[in-house]
């Protein structure tokens, strides 16, 4: 880790301190003066005004010039801090973040994809931002970085974690029903751990396999949980063979979850909408029959 490299957090926080500090002094000054005048010149104590002064040119000059100097200083520091957010260090690790309604996928140089953003501690990371549908926002509060993810536009952001740990990553631009569920974590780990993770497949947790990988890659898990919790869409836990009440063309009917049902749900999600859930799922026409088969195999196992 280069000790001279300024993290984004350390570039931004002094600007906060500077502006908040001056603002606090101004606010306390204004309020104290106002309250002081009200107490001193209240009508019971000061029944008649003792001045009819309608202005003072010198005072006006002073309190025009002073704020001008103060805000120009704030402008300058704000701009300088912003430049630090924009100057990406040369040796930064490149990752592509793909945002869709309502999940994130991170793709690394070796083709590995992950729903969480794994990064090595002490190494700058450059994230290229791609949206497949509407506007999203890439926001990591701990690193003070945020950038909109705009369809058809190349945006990027960089940051560096200087301590290991999980950090929240939010979608900051409103994107519909699942906006507040479009959150994941940045996992900052040691360089060695990161390399092991990057080289390996998923850790051997239950449900590893092609089907699960496809669900993650396509962002399905942003709306459908694997553990039974209710998200934007129905959970996948125990979905195989379940009887569900769906609305088809305005009428309710009962359907059994089988291969045909799942295929139809992926290709024409609006055709059958499970009651109690919003009709918001986008279609996934690019999934091949083989891939859908892998997903089905995975879902069959998910009791």
């Amino acid at each position: 880790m280069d000790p001279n490299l300024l993290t984004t957090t350390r570039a931004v926080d002094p600007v906060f301190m500077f502006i908040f500090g001056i603002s606090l002094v101004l606010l306390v000054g204004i309020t104290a003066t106002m309250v002081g005048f009200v107490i001193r010149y209240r009508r019971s104590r000061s029944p008649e005004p003792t001045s009819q002064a309608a202005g003072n040119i010198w005072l006006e000059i002073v309190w025009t010039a002073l704020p001008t100097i103060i805000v120009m200083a704030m402008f300058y520091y704000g701009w300088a801090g912003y430049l630090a957010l924009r100057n990406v260090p040369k040796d930064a690790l490149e990752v592509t973040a793909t945002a869709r309604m309502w999940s994130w996928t991170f793709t690394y140089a070796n083709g590995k994809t992950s729903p969480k953003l794994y990064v090595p501690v002490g190494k700058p990371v450059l994230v290229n931002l791609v949206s497949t549908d509407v506007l999203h926002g890439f926001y990591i509060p701990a690193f003070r970085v945020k950038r909109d993810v705009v369809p058809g536009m190349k945006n990027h952001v960089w940051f560096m974690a200087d301590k290991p740990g999980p950090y929240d990553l939010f979608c900051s631009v409103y994107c519909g029903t699942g906006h507040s569920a479009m959150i994941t974590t940045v996992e900052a780990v040691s360089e060695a751990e990161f390399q092991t993770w990057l080289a390996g497949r998923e850790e051997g947790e239950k449900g590893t396999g092609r089907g699960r990988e496809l669900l993650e890659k396509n962002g399905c898990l942003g709306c459908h949980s694997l553990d039974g919790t209710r998200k934007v869409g129905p959970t996948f836990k125990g979905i195989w063979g379940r009887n569900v009440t769906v609305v088809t063309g305005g009428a309710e009917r009962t359907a059994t979850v089988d291969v045909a049902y799942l295929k139809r749900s992926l290709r024409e999600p609006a055709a059958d909408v499970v009651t109690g859930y919003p009709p918001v799922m986008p279609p996934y026409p690019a999934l091949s029959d083989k891939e859908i088969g892998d997903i089905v195999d995975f879902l069959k196992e998910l009791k």
Partner: protein
Amino acid sequence: MEPTDLTPPPAGSFWNDTGRSGITSWIFSTDHKRIGLLYFYSVFGFFLVGVLLGLLIRIELMAPGRTIMGPQAYNALFTVHGVVMVFLFIIPGFQGSFGNLVMPIQIGARDVAFPRLNLFSWWLYMAGAVIILTSLFTGGGPPDTGWTFYVPFSERTGTNVSLAVFGVFIVGFSSIITGVNFVTTIHRLRAEGMTWGRLPLFVWSLYATAWVQILATPILGITLVLIMAERILGTGLFDPSRGGDPLMYQHLFWIYSHPAVYIMILPAMGVISDIIPVFARKPIFGYRMIVFSSLAIAAAGSLVWGHHMFTSGMSDIAILVFSFLTFIVAIPSAIKVFNWVSTLYRGSISLEAPMLFALSFILLFSIGGLTGLILGAAATDIHVHDTHFVVGHFHYVIFGGSGFAFFGAMHYWLPKFYGRRYAEKPAVIAWALMFVGFNILYFSMMVLGLKGMPRRYYDYLPEFAPLNLTSTIGSWILAAGLVLLLVNLFRGLRHGERVGSNPWGGATLEWSIPTPPPTENFAEEPVVTHGPYDFRGAGIP
């Protein structure tokens, strides 16, 4: 209540001197005072609707996860809250209600320059409002885009965006017409001796606002038409796969919607500049500088829209320029605050309800303005943009600023038009409750934003729970104060103590005519011989 309470206002007042009867004497009246009251009750009705929606938002956010509604309902709720508060309450609010009620009298005129156009403007406003309300219950249901209607989401969503946007388009025309009417009135209908240097500061603020309405609102109209074209015709103007650009939409939207913030706040500053001298019995300090700063805010405020887009992917050069201009606009606001506070020096200050609202305006607006500096600085904006910090900030400016000024104006001017007043003590208690509740509600939001909670979030992580609960409790205290304010004020206007022509000792012209004002305002055209805050010149003890 005593029987005498129900005696009608004196003959010759605008309440009973009319050719028509019943409801038609209101909805077809071209009297600026009647139109002012029509506007007042319309905008205030929508304000109360917006308040209810806001309280529901806070109940949902009281705890993480589902509290009372699902995500789709929540998204519609914050969208409709924003649309109603922005387009149906605060943009038309001051101009339509107190602008109409007071401005022609303050300049010594019989009415506005185009009384029929004035009525038409209210009708357009109501038509737009009805269309917006219709959009909530028809088609794909209430819009769920946020009041900003950002593309491409607003093009894709199945909710009733097109109709809602059309309603806002119509309301925009009402705003333009009012602007034209007021500019013409202030130029052409000032009484003899009412020089530009003797205009009350409320009139000056309406004048600056009217120019913003005339020049900026057409951009909103065009932008909204483009959204409809995108949705209905699929023109692809904002769609990158067809050569369009989503950022272009954001520029167009904010070219209007940032100046719109000044449409909301400038008249409020005017109200404050009128109230403070009266309750301090001293001329306003720095009249010319306050006028100048209103015009400077209107002009410079039209050039800062890009500060809503620092994270959008807009070029760094654009960010440099917009950040710089944003800081420039802070200067005239600071000048006003210093002048208001200086007006208090060596005065004789009476802390009645309008003055309490005015003084709390100074504090709340200062907090709103100073937190705006965080948002104007490029580095710090990146962290807090699109978080609850922004939500807290603009509620400090628009509710703590414009809203509190509106309540101040209600207590200051409505008794003049009703001839009766509210009780003082409950008004002070209501103010105190609202002030305390307000700060708990919105200060918590700003801290939440600094901690990283994004805005427009239906659900949130457990770490944000305590402050969200605090904020919700604040909303109840604020609501309790508001209920007390309403009951006390409107009960007082019907049954309260009678007031004379000049209950507060004001030197502007509205206090020189009978209470309630006659239909013709002035028995004969007045000749103005003193400034608006020259209490000695007006012969006020």
